[in-house]
């Protein structure tokens, strides 16, 4: 059964429609990546799923149960099954608590005080490869990579079914980024976790995600298997994102497609296809609103898609 089923999710703050109908599904054990520029609504999607941001329309089903608009009381038992990781590795840890208190906080909140919390702290630190004496440290004494591991340990404390991770590698050096992704890949397999990962780093997506969705102005514009999308992006925006990825090789000849301008304001959404004004392949037909079409599990919102193999 589908673990997470998001349908037509809308979020507005006043007149600004941050999410204008987002739908996607995540199966148990699957990793789904949401990709897009800042302001595309990625963060709002996962916060809305977790009930931390409002969602005026649509539905969020977790394990078959509707959770959009649920009260904090109704959500509390589900919090065991959905864990979150936030962007700022150090800033998402309560600054005056020791690491021991931080990673055992989920047990306290869920009323599982009868457990041996010291032993749990030890087990969790071991799981994320941090030495046991870190339990007595404070967040400001940690490096970004270490704080990120603490974040992972806390997210895994209650053995959730789903992790919502917002830019889990942001602010980490490349050598540490690899460690974190390896750890997450490993834990995911061992524990059978499903994950939704938000990132603008496409290099990361390729190595962790089974499927990915590309967001633009609060909507998905393309969705499919990660490998298929990397090999054969159909939406011009996806193609631009993929080519805007400088390679660590001075001789790499990049067939880069320049993306014109910057994302438009959410207050003045363009008519027709919202990507039209920046699109290097826009045609007259693009003044009409493109529908969402799915073919062989590959979703696309474009009337002038790139042909298969054009990207290569």
């Amino acid at each position, binding site marked *: 059964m589908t673990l997470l089923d998001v349908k037509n999710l809308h979020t507005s703050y006043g007149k600004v429609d941050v999410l204008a109908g987002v739908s996607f599904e995540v199966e148990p054990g699957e990793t789904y990546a949401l990709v897009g*520029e*800042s302001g595309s609504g990625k963060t709002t999607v996962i916060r809305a799923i977790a009930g931390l941001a409002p969602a005026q329309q649509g539905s969020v089903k977790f394990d078959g149960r509707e959770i959009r608009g649920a009260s904090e009381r109704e959500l509390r038992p589900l919090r065991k099954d959905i864990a979150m990781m936030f962007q700022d590795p150090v800033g998402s840890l309560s600054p005056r608590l020791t690491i021991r208190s931080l990673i055992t906080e989920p047990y306290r909140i869920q009323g599982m005080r009868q457990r041996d919390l010291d032993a749990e702290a030890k087990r969790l630190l071991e799981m994320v490869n941090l030495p046991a004496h870190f339990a007595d440290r404070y967040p400001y004494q940690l*490096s*970004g990579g270490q704080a990120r591991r603490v974040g992972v340990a806390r997210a895994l404390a209650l053995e959730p079914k789903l992790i919502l991770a917002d830019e889990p590698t942001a602010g980490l*050096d*490349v*050598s*540490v*980024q*690899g*460690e974190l*992704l*390896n750890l997450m*890949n490993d834990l995911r397999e061992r524990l059978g976790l499903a994950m939704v990962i938000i990132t*603008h*780093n*496409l*290099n*990361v997506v*390729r*190595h962790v995600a089974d499927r990915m969705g590309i967001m633009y102005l609060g909507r998905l514009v393309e969705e499919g298997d*990660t*490998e298929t999308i990397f090999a054969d992006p159909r939406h011009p925006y996806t193609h*631009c*994102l993929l080519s*805007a*990825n*400088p*390679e*660590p*090789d*001075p*001789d*790499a000849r*990049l067939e*880069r497609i*320049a*993306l014109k301008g*910057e*994302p438009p304001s959410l207050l003045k959404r363009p008519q027709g296809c919202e990507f039209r004004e920046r699109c290097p392949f826009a045609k007259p037909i693009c003044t009409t609103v493109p529908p969402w079409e799915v073919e062989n599990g590959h979703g696309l919102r474009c009337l002038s898609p790139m042909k298969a193999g054009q990207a290569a």
Partner: protein
Amino acid sequence: MSDTLLQIDNLGVDYETARGDLKALRDITFDVNRGEIVGIVGESGCGKSTLISSILRLTAPNTRFRQGEIRFKGQDLLPLSERRMRALRGEDISIVFQDPMQTHNPVLTIGQQMLDIQHRSKASKAEKRARAAKMLGAVGIPDPEARLDQFPHEFSGGMRQRIAIAMALMSEPDLLIADEPTTALDATLEVQIIERLQELQQQFDCAILFISHHLGVIAELCDRVVVMYAGAVIESGDVREIFHNPKHPYTRRLIDCDPGHIKTRARVLPTIPGEVPDLANLPEGCIFRDRCDQALPCCAHQVPPLTQLQEGHRAACWLNHEEVSA
């Protein structure tokens, strides 16, 4: 390429702290020639920021210059008076900072700020304004005349960074220091900024010292690369040499770690296990030894010198010394 603009020689900088002296920079040596783009790569704590603030002499009060020289056009900057230094910062050396959202004064329009930085010029206000508009046009801000009257918050992050570049180039400096100018931006905007910098560099013929931890950006933009680790230069050279023929294990493994060149889904990504050494309590010998999988016995006792291996390629590793490694 003999026309040296900036020459850093054996620079050693400490921070005085309660725990003792933090050896932030040790024996830093490299050059920047006129009209050249030099990249400085390194991970957090490698001393990039200390290096920039030392060149600009905008250092924290507990900074101590222990040894070495920073020569700009042949003149050592360290003994220079604050007044001369200020003139230099305005005229000959400019900087673009990492966070475009905090670079501009929020209560002044962009036009006012761009007029202010021309305060040394004797041109009329209208002329200064025209120059400002021209610069905005040059960095790709559409409709620059009208946008001069807007406030920083009316621009997006990518535009603000371009405005910051425009302002840095106003005085037509000989050296532009760019401190992670694309880190806070999305990949699409990052690419726009890099391409713009390349164009502008040719147009204005200034040298750029480009600091980044993003290897892809460095590879694409720079002519030469300086690799730093824990406060020391461990390798420097031509960009192709560095990326295709790295001579220091750290450089090699840093490039291996970048997932950008691993094209198929990897089960396990390469990493560099271990931690950067404590700068207040440096280990004996090579600073990278604890994390190095090729360490030799001599690495434990002797600091490898930064030696020239061939024209324009230097590395600090005993593996390149046949008499030791053999």
